[in-house]
């Protein structure tokens, strides 16, 4: 007996909100990256859930792509964090606020 789709959506929404909360409150760049991952995966859950609901594989394939994208994003993000560390002796995103008007 399969789980009802609404539960998946609730799960996904919860994961997304946790990620969003992390982005809005944390100051460490690494936690930022992790929060973004959470939000991406919330989207993935939605993809898979709807794919399952409609009996259509497209959403699952999309979630595979999203995972690959997330891996690439993490690579770039870690690179940025390394440079941030070198320049500011820390990874606090509130320190690096000079790139503005």
């Amino acid at each position: 007996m399969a789980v009802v789709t609404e539960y998946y959506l609730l799960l996904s929404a919860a994961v997304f909100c946790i990620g969003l909360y992390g982005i809005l409150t944390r100051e460490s760049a690494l936690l930022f990256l992790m929060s973004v991952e959470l939000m991406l995966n919330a989207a993935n859950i939605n993809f898979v859930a709807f794919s399952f609901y409609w009996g259509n594989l497209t959403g699952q394939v999309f979630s595979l792509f999203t995972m690959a994208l997330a891996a690439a994003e993490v690579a770039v993000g870690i690179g940025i964090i390394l440079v941030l560390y070198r320049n500011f002796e820390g990874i606090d995103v509130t320190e690096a606020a000079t790139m503005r008007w």
Partner: protein
Amino acid sequence: MAGVYDFVPAIAALPFLAFLVSLFFGRYMPKRGAEAGVIATAGSLGLSTWTALTVAGFTGPATSYNANLYTWVQGVGDGALTLSLGVLVDPLAALMLLIVSLISFLVHVFSLGYMNDEGETGLPRYYAGLGLFTASMLAFVFSNNLLMAFMFFELVGLCSYLLIGFWFRDDGPPSAAKKAFLVTRFGDYFFLVGVVGVFATFGTGLFAPITDGGTVVAESFPQVAEHALGGEASVETFGLETGTWFTVLGLLVLGGVIGKSAQFPLHTWLPDAMEGPTPVSALIHAATMVAAGVYLVARMYGFYLLSPQALAVIALVGGFTALFAATMGVVKQELKQVLAYSTISQYGYMMLALGAGGYTAAVFHLTTHAVFKALLFLGAGSVIIAMHHEENMWTMGGLKDRMPVTYYTFLSGSLALAGIVPFAGFWSKDEVLFEALVHGLGTLETEASMVGTLLLVGYAMGLLAVFFTAFYTFRMVFLTFHGDARTDAARDATENRWNVTFPLAVLGIGAATVGFINMVPVAELTGAEIEFLHDWLAHGGIDATTTETYSELLHDVAGIEAAELGALGPGAVSLALALAGVGTAWTLYNVPDPVEQTDKLGGLKTLLVHNYYQDEYQVWLAQGVTVPLARAADRFDQGVVDGVVNGISSVSLFTGSRFRRIQSGLVTNYAALMTLSLVLLLIVFVLAGEVMG
């Protein structure tokens, strides 16, 4: 085989070459560039003579020539215009080429005496200007389409500016040059609109159709217009009735003519243009610039004939100008000023003739006037040299004995100008008036009686002007050459060298004899076939530009009829008036010590001396109307148009400077903003969905 027509472009190219040579190498030449000009114009004269002889049929059958030589804009697709430069040589063009190159040649020779011998500086510039002037005028004459004619028309105007302002260090000439340029430009503005209108309407600016082996390959715009009036072709008339639109087009082009030919009300530049060197005055006012206007009307006469209204306007403007300018000439004190007003007046006669359907008469007067007016100007130049650049006639007197060649040639020109038989001016002026009279009388009885009335009004004014013309001409002669010398300069005056007297002699003989090419009254009296000019203009390889075609059009389309009238009566009337004018001048001024009789005119004299306040009212028009108007436009532009643009930009700048504050540089803030915006957007969508649903 290379015929003479292949060399026609060279008629204009030679003086152009002289222009380049004088400009760049003139300073190294012993005569400062005059050599190039004299040789080039002599070459042009030779080629023009050859062309004229070929057109006349002396070197084989009589021919004409019309061809596009160079296409500089190739139209692609339907309704596209193709713009070309081409050559049209028919009897009219050949005659005009001959006149222009002859006068230019003589003026170049005369300049040796007037400019070189007087030790003027800046001569290369002078001869360059003269060369370019001659070249543009000659090219204008053989233009085969309206746009090319317009281009060279403008070049002529530019050269007049350069030459009138030759003595640019004095006060007068630069301002006179500017005035000449601006006033003629004002007329040319209408001409330009007319040119565009002609191209937009007919898709071609050709004066005469181009034929190839008997078939027409390119139609001319007067022909298309004729077909359109006859209902055989349709043209774009921009919502007007076909005939009305053609009248509008004709009057637009006429704007340029009125400016260049110094007709009322755009005549004011010409008397001021006397500030230029005298040979330039001779060239501008005898054969080139001023003649260009009249020549243009003659060139596209087939078009004007389609619109009797335009013809009536031409005749009226011409007749009025003839009288108006003649009255002003009566009170002038300076030799060249008298000649200036006589020029305006004489061109008025030509316009009168053209408007009255007297095409041959107009061309005839154009020819004779070119000769005798060039003569009078050069004669005046000779007097001015002898008087050490003093132009006031009241300082002269008694030059008759000391300058015999100048006197007798000047007298010949004066008799021609006054219209005394048998000098050139008599025959041509008589024919002009005769044509105006017969066509006026003839048309009076037809449906177009309004046109007939206008022609008769023009005739009356022209006839009255004969008296004034004779009077001021001989007032000038008597004051200058007769009586006692009134100053030391006049007592010590001597005759000039060959380079002054040779052109005078050539033109003096011309002024006495040119009229014999078309002695209509004599032909009528004796029945002899001596109306050479009539025959000359009536034949020709291009039917569309012969007087035969024109007289048909005049009768059929314009509805202007000729009354049955002998040429002798009207001729006698105008001769009597001319003699009366000479007689009046004789009694008043041919005395040892003439006095200023003009004082007897009282208030009229003030009016005439001030040229009917024409300059004043035009200056008022410029300063009182145009300047405030321009200022208002400027204010609108600066205030409203620029204000809106500037306002928009400052509003953007202000909002931008406020909005950039949200760029805090903190990633968290951006994320928060994005989240809030998304939520807001979702709420809006939900609400909108509810409203729509």
